[in-house]
């Protein structure tokens, strides 16, 4: 299993816009949209965010994989809202959710993870001056996590296969105890290796 970012290669205007402006606009929109109650204004916002997602050049398949998980949640909310509050409040709620999710998706699709990490590091700088966080440790932790997701995934598969070979059904306790012990052992090795080289 590979951990692929959602970012899509591209050189459209949305891709070229600096990450910090996109993030700032997203946060501002996230706050602003909660104050709008007018259904036409929200429809406008929804259309704009849909256009922005389209402007990233995302393929229908990738888009659908992202939306699929959300559809049941949104449908349930829609039904709840229609039943208990009526059509208009339901439309307001759904348009707002759709607009926000679309905007955030447009940012995610058009910005490299490394650029977002860089914005995070810069955002952490004031906290670092206060002595609350160590930005380099955060960067190390992020890199380690990305490095070890495939390895822990492989351990999971190996333990699964070993147990299936012994005729055991999928059993969460029997699966997770060895997985965690392996993870802890690996953490100890990695920590010793880092200390030895620094």
């Amino acid at each position: 299993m590979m951990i692929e970012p959602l970012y899509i290669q591209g050189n459209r205007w949305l891709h070229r816009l600096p990450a910090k402006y996109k993030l700032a606009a997203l946060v501002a929109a996230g706050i602003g949209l909660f104050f709008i109650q007018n259904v036409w204004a929200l429809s406008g916002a929804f259309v704009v965010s849909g256009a922005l997602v389209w402007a990233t050049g995302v393929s229908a398949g990738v888009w659908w994989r992202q939306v699929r998980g959300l559809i049941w949640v949104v449908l349930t909310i829609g039904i709840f809202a229609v039943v208990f509050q009526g059509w208009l409040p339901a439309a307001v709620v759904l348009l707002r959710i759709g607009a926000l999710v679309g905007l955030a998706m447009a940012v995610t699709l058009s910005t490299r993870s490394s650029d977002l990490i860089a914005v995070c590091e810069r955002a952490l700088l004031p906290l670092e001056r206060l002595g609350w966080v160590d930005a380099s440790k955060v960067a190390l932790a992020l890199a380690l996590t990305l490095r070890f997701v495939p390895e822990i995934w492989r351990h999971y598969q190996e333990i699964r296969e070993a147990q299936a070979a012994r005729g055991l059904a999928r059993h969460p306790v029997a699966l997770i105890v060895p997985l965690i012990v392996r993870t802890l052992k690996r953490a100890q090795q990695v920590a010793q290796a880092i200390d030895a080289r620094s």
Partner: protein
Amino acid sequence: MKTQDTVLIALFAALIVVLSLVPPIPLPAIPVPVTLQSLGVMLTGAMLGPLRGGLACLLYLLLAAIGLPVLPGGRGGLGVFFGPTGGFLLGMALGAFVTGWLARRLVRTSSQGAMSVVGYAVACIAGGIGAVYLIGVPWLASVTQMELSKAILAVLVFIPGDLVKVAVASWVAWRVERVWPILRESP
């Protein structure tokens, strides 16, 4: 914070990613599929303690926020945080902290087996369910403009699955702690 702590935080964040991505397990008599994401949160809190556990969850959320598909179903990106279930994600960090804080207080190294499991279970219920829903449900209600009572009703369907995960997490935490006691040495 020592190197070992940074590495443990990173590897447990990776473990939560893996648990989030394994296919959901259908349980008998429970209508919704159960993902192991919240099991990862409970385990991280119970084993790493409040500080490291909370930080591991924050790291996991940071990965999701910068657009990596680490949430169940391969989702990710900031959109999920602004969506109706965003509060449950933010609640996870608090949940791991509360689980860890309580587990450190309720479970002593000298505790008997059964008492340890019960201690971990109480910690997981308060953190992994209580704290997560404390943020998640009002968030859901405000994004969807549902009444709070109706939002509570809507999420009740997930509680049986969560209780199964509490049982698994407390049992696993106890078993692992017996073979790996060094985890308790730092915060």
